[in-house]
Structures are given as structure tokens and as C-alpha cells.
């Protein structure tokens, strides 16, 4: 059951109108190669689930700028004035979630649950239009699970049965998304022999991953963003 495939096969099944989760928090953990392939592939009317929209002309922002995304479920767009502008111009529908609620909704979908109850935002505008219930005297909003047709994630190392290890702050949303989609596609910086990863140190067990693509050469996008060097 070798899950390693080439990039065009990996994303060939993505269809117009699907919901796609994309890993990453800023540059680390963003699967730029898969995003680029999706841009070439041409699928439209997508719903995208990602922590943020990267920055203008980078990562998922390219998909959004190309008009491929109808709806974005995200946490914040503070670094992407382009997408914020498109949102204000109603060229894209944006649903904002508190960051921890966003990842928890994804995890909830991945864990085969229907939803969860949280008091985050209970006293704010975010609780509007949400079902509110009381449990053991605590009042909370009902948050629904999020799942996607496809998750595109990035890992440092993988093997041919889909075991994944993430590196440093590139882990972020990737492990939760790896559990929460019907088809999970992982790009990895290197593929190593199955059995050579420490079983205690594997972050995502292979059962969750459907396709593994090796990044032969890291695009420039994976590199350091000079404007984020603060000292």
C-alpha cells in the first residue's frame, strides 16, 4: 500500500465546489507545492479552510486572488490586505473563527464528533446566531465540527504508508487537518524508509493519510520572509 505518488495524480481528484483544508500558520507548514498544483489544476468555487490567507501573492492568497475561492473559513487576515479588500468588496465570503475554536472545530470533525460546547466569545458578537446550551451550570455556544473533502498538508518527513513528522512551528494546523478530510494529501520534504521513524515520535499515523508527495526542490516561497526578520 504505497501511498507515494506524483503531484498531479495527488490532486487530480479535486473538483469544483469542494471544501479544501490547507495547513500552515504563516509560511511554516503551508503546502506551497500542493497549492501551486491546485492553481494549475484550475478547480473553482472552492471553500477554503485555513488559519490565515498567507500574505498577498503567496500561498493560498494566489488561489483567492485568482478567483478560485468562493468562501474562506479562517481566523484572521491581518497580514493580507489584498484578501481583506476582496472581502470588503464582497468578492469572497469570509467566516472568522477564534483561532483555537477553528482548530478545535477541525479536530472535532477529525474525531468523528458532531460539535462541542465552549464559552469562548459567549459575551461577544461571535455568539450571535449560535445555539446556546447550558451543561452542568455552564453556558456555552454550540460549535459545529468542520470536515473537508480534501486536506492539503505539509510535513518535514514521511514514509510510504503515510506516517508523518512535522518540524518546529510548521506543525500548527497540520495534524488536526490530517484527521479531518475524506482525502488527505501530504507533501513532505523527504520520504524515508518505512520503519525508520521512531514510533513514539510520529505525529500523524499513516492511517490518516491517503497520498504522499515528495518535494524535490523547495520553492522560494518556503524560505525566509525578509520583512519578518525583526532584529
Amino acid at each position, binding site marked *: 500500500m504505497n501511498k507515494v505518488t506524483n503531484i498531479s495524480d495527488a490532486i487530480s481528484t479535486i473538483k469544483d465546489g469542494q471544501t479544501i483544508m490547507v495547513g500552515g500558520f504563516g509560511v511554516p507548514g503551508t503546502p506551497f507545492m500542493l497549492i501551486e498544483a491546485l492553481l494549475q489544476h484550475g478547480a473553482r468555487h472552492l471553500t477554503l479552510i485555513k488559519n490565515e490567507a498567507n500574505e498577498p501573492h503567496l500561498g493560498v492568497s494566489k488561489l483567492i486572488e485568482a478567483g478560485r475561492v468562493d468562501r474562506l473559513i479562517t481566523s484572521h487576515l*491581518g497580514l493580507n490586505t489584498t484578501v481583506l479588500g476582496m472581502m470588503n468588496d464582497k468578492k469572497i465570503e469570509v467566516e472568522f473563527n477564534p*483561532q483555537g475554536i477553528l482548530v478545535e472545530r477541525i479536530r472535532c470533525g477529525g474525531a468523528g464528533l458532531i460539535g462541542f460546547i465552549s464559552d*469562548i466569545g459567549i459575551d461577544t458578537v461571535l455568539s450571535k446566531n449560535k445555539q446556546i446550551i447550558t451543561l452542568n451550570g455552564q453556558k456555552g455556544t454550540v460549535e459545529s465540527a468542520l470536515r473537508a473533502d480534501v486536506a492539503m498538508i505539509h510535513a518535514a518527513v514521511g514514509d510510504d504508508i503515510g506516517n508523518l513528522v512535522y*518540524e518546529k*512551528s510548521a506543525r500548527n494546523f497540520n495534524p488536526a487537518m490530517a484527521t479531518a478530510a475524506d482525502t488527505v494529501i501530504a507533501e513532505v520534504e523527504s520520504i524515508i524508509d518505512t520503519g525508520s521513524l521512531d514510533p513514539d515520535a510520529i505525529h500523524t499515523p499513516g492511517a490518516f493519510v491517503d497520498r504522499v508527495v515528495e518535494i524535490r526542490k523547495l520553492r522560494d516561497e518556503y524560505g525566509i520572509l525578509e520583512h519578518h526578520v525583526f532584529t
Partner: protein
Amino acid sequence: MSNLKALKLTKKQLTVSNKRDKIARRAEKEIIAGQIVNLGIGIPTLILKYLNWEKRVQIHSENGILGMKSHCSRETADRNLIDAGGGYIDLVAGASFFDSSLSFALVRGGRLDIAFLGALEISTRGDLANWMIPGKYTPGIGGGMELAQKARRLIITTLHTNRRGRPKILESCNLPLTAKACVDMIITELAVIDVVDDQLQLVEIAEEATLEEIVEKTDAPLMVPDGVLPRF
């Protein structure tokens, strides 16, 4: 995020920079040895500059890091290692990485001892508004709502007035709230204020400030204890 902006300001307006540094320096003293601390963008991140590492504090970053040390130079920047504000960082010994889900479990589960955040508005009873200006600035909430609502102690580090010179500390907030009754302490370039029992209590006055100035620039009732207040 606005770190970048902050740095540009640093070069242009030294006065504001001095104020910000003063706030950060004072804020650092609130941190107790061994605490788990989250620093929002802007002034809160400046605290790193003044942090006494003998306290063995562990700095949490929402994107899945415990044990960040400071922003680092281009030479030591690692493409896989940024804080929640996007800056490249280095680590203390004993740092750990985890996913976003565990990162917010830590915050909501009560393991975050202090969060330092900025503010647009703060009310008498400790309501905080710091994430949106309807029609003008709606970038989304990020992790701020959970930090504000769930940190064991929330300290606001902010300039006392906004860019138009108007008070940020108000009887009640006009902007959409980040969280209700969440603020424990406010540190500005002029004053240190505790929020106790839905009241604002002045506890320290900046060396450069007068009580009159503080009262004038605060649009909410301020309890001033008898006697001489400590200066900072």
C-alpha cells in the same frame, strides 16, 4: 503582525518608542518565576527585551511553541520557526513544539499564567475591545479572544490614549468586545491601574506623569488611594 509597523515607528518617533519601552519594562515586573506567559503583538512583545531570564519563564506562542526566547537575526532565522506574529525566533532550553489544538487547550485549560495584550478600549469593569473597528478594521480575531478570556491574569499594555489623543480607558467600551470583564491590570506610559471589583484602582504613577494628567486622559472613574503612590 503589527510588529513590523512598530519597528518602523521606532525609527521615526522616538518619543512613542520611549513610552512603549517604559511600559514593557514595567510590565516585565509582573511576571513571577516559572510562569507561562503569552505576549501579544506590539508592546507586549517588547517585554522580551527586558525579561529577566533567571525567572525561567516560558513564553507561549499560539502557533504551537512553549519556550520562545526572542526575535532573532537573519543569520540564525529558521524558515520553520516563527512566533504567532510571524517573526523569526530562537528558543530557551526546554522548549517544546505542539499543534494548534494543544496550544489552545493550554490557554483555555487554565495553564496560561499571564497574557499581555494591547487594547483599543478598556472599560471600568475590565471589558476589552481590541480586535475590530466595524467598517474600518475587521481582520478577524485570531487567538486574542481566547487569550483575553482564559489567561489566569490579563494585563493590558498600551499607550494611555489613542492616535487621536482620545482616552482608551472608558466607562464602557463602544467597540465590539474581545471579552467581558477580563482585564486584571492596565499598564500605560502614565499609570499602572488594577481592575478590582468592577472598579479601576490607580496603583502607580509614572515619574513623568501627574495625577491630574492621568485623570484627564482617563474617561472613567479612577479610585485613587490615600497617601503617596509609588512611581515607576
